[in-house]
């Protein structure tokens, strides 16, 4: 009997923005995400623990990342903001139900 053993490694890229993700800073994050997706990254973990402020432009970047990564067979998951007000933005829009979110990077990475 021959046993064929294959190891499959899933490459997951973590990006951790901090501070404000607003109409001025969101384009920078969008460009960075587009760049890594175009380079072949399929799986993204966006670590938002240090995020203090997010507006609709910031939310749009995250939703775009989710859509694009899924379009190329991958996924985007989030580490939830520690700031309760930033987290409330996800609850108001019900994006907390759309995104797969966890409390720690280890928890989120284990779910890919």
């Amino acid at each position, binding site marked *: 009997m021959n046993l064929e053993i294959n190891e499959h490694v899933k490459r997951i890229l973590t990006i951790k923005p901090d501070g*404000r993700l*607003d*109409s*001025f800073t969101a384009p920078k994050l969008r460009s960075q995400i587009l760049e890594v997706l175009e380079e072949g990254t399929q799986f993204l973990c966006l670590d938002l623990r240090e995020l203090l*402020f997010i*507006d*609709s*432009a910031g*939310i*749009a970047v995250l*939703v*775009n990342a*989710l*859509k694009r990564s899924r379009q190329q067979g991958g996924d985007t998951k989030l580490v939830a903001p520690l700031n*309760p*007000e930033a987290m*409330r*933005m996800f609850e*108001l*829009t*019900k*994006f907390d*139900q*759309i995104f797969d979110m966890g409390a720690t990077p280890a928890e989120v990475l284990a779910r890919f």
Partner: protein
Amino acid sequence: MIDPDDEIRLVLPAKHQYLNLTGAAIDALLTRMDCPARASYDVQVALQEICANIVDHAYEDRPGGQIQVTITPRENALEITVRDRGIAFDPDTVIDPPLGQLQERGFGLFFARQMLDGLEYAVDDGENCWRLYKKFEPVGSEVV
């Protein structure tokens, strides 16, 4: 101690890189008014969204525009007027985005409406004029 009805006025170039100044001013003022963090955040988001909307839409393709923000402390409340000379806008034509879907756009006014106690728009003397109003219970004033 903040004197009610004092006016604080900011005049900003209509560019995204300056909009965080509004948040810093609101945060500093509301901290001295014993405003809870949640209500302060609500005002900062709402004002950011209105100003970003002005940059993107009212002044679209019109360089050199300005945004005038007037902040007036009221008793356990904050009133803000935002004026610009860009293209007029009818917020009544903007419906709330669908929630729980992969929708990217349309959340700016949604956030402003959700987070304020009052949001009005009018054209006044040739200027777009937004009025934002937020009430709050000062920290430490809760009845035990």
